[in-house]
């Protein structure tokens, strides 16, 4: 069953009224041309399953929150936000589930680069050194590893503890994510 984004909450509410009172999972698939958010719901008594698909593009990847209809959606939506970079509008700003992604592309998108170096901005030289040394001699790799650490006043995550960084980021509002992940 396919819904448009703007009628998603209403549609799910109707389905809930028809008996689909149990949310199984919310996830998404990156089909290469766009993202598809999937909502798996179930009617426990009648033993029926239903899958609701919502297609969204990469550029304005957001869905409205369905927590009012299914309270179980909370963590699933957070996971979807984190893994796919799909913003969820209308919900309380919350921490990412898996802490401290630093400027990383949403992992489960197909655009996620497997062997790239994901570092905070200040460690670019380390990243470049490592990239240059793909099959380098041990001493060269060692040099890359022993590059001087960034200064403590870096806006990255090392200065404050993880919770501080997470809270600040979360307070900036988790619902305005579009495209890439939140740059912290």
């Amino acid at each position, binding site marked *: 069953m396919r819904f448009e984004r703007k009628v998603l909450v209403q549609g799910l509410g109707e389905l809930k009224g028809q008996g689909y009172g*149990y949310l199984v999972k919310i*996830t998404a698939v990156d089909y290469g041309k766009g993202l598809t958010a999937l909502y798996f719901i179930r009617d426990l008594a009648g033993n029926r399953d239903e899958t609701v698909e919502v297609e969204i593009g990469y550029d304005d990847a957001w869905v409205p929150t369905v927590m009012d209809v299914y309270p179980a959606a909370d963590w699933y939506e957070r996971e979807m936000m984190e893994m796919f970079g799909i913003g969820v509008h209308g919900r309380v700003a919350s921490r990412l589930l898996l802490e401290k992604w630093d400027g990383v592309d949403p992992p489960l998108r197909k655009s996620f680069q497997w062997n790239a170096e994901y570092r905070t901005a200040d460690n670019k030289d380390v990243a470049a050194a490592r990239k240059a040394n793909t099959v380098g001699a041990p001493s060269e790799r060692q040099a890359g590893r022993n590059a001087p650490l960034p200064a403590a006043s870096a806006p990255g995550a090392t200065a404050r503890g993880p919770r501080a960084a997470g809270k600040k980021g979360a307070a900036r509002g988790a619902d305005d994510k579009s495209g890439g992940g939140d740059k912290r």
Partner: protein
Amino acid sequence: MITRINIGPVHPSTHGVLRLVVGLDGDTVKEVEPHIGFLHRGVEKLVETRMYMQSPPYMEKLDYIAPLSYDEAYVAAVEAALGVEVGERAAYVRLIQLELQRIASHLFFLGALCNDMGQMFTTFMWGFEDRDRVLALLEEATGQRMFYVNMRVGGVTMELPPDFSESCLSFLTYFEKRIGQYESYLEKNPVFMERMKGVGVLSADEARALGVAGPVLRASGIDYDVRAARPYYAYKKLNFSSVTALKGDNFARYKVRMLEMRESVRLIRAALLSMPEGSALGATTKLIGPAAKNRTVSVSRELPRGECMMYMVADPQRPYRLSIRDPSFINLAALPYLAREQRLADLFAIMGSLDLVMACVDR
């Protein structure tokens, strides 16, 4: 005034690496915020780069207490994608192994629950002794005590050894008495009952709304067990009946699992006695095999911890996307709700009764 304390990620509880930030008002828990992700390995992304049968080891590590069940769930999804039917005997063999795995998992639950409540590992040790016997049986059947990787497309890796039936049946006779002993030992202990009855009550509506799975759902009165609702293998033929409790407190969740163990014993016995002849071996399609026929498949299995739904978008040789819905994730999400306005000591009892495995939660 809320005092925030930090529990974990390293703590003596056996559930895994979990960090709880608990907001206390005196002795009452006002809010619980679980921080997870310590065990995140990116399994869903990893399997996208592996061929189908290269992934079962990843799947098994998702639940180190009952690895076979994840293995089987994934291979079932692969079979659905490839359009392969499991042979009759193989279905019985898989059922026996799954139910043995369930017994082992629930024994672990029992030990971890009593541990969380402050017992000095006694029930844990006894439970593990029995779990060791189950693992020895599984070692006879699969060659491994843990992380079996025993499932192949269409069947299993090895036939059951000729004397498996006898050793299994003798274990079952012994174990039935043991379940009775565990139950009487724990349920006649007033201290134990005090901490279980009436603690962490989850009503049926709340359970449905929170989306919890497995024994937690069934203990709140909702009769939904994948083995009964969408029977697979020989569950229907062996007259599987799901176990439900009504109260939804810790004790109900514990009792559901104890009764499920009894049901497993009955199922294994019935399966052993009525197993059809034939070959249980599956195709050794390790890396290269028949191309996937169905594009999207969705397979539900009843793990010891709850229902696992594998939603797979299948490419010819590897999954394009595998979405694993694991029960511990959503059970943990229910913890902040369950633990509100409870005492701190009850938080641990509740967590023990939810039977969480962090590897499952983090994937």
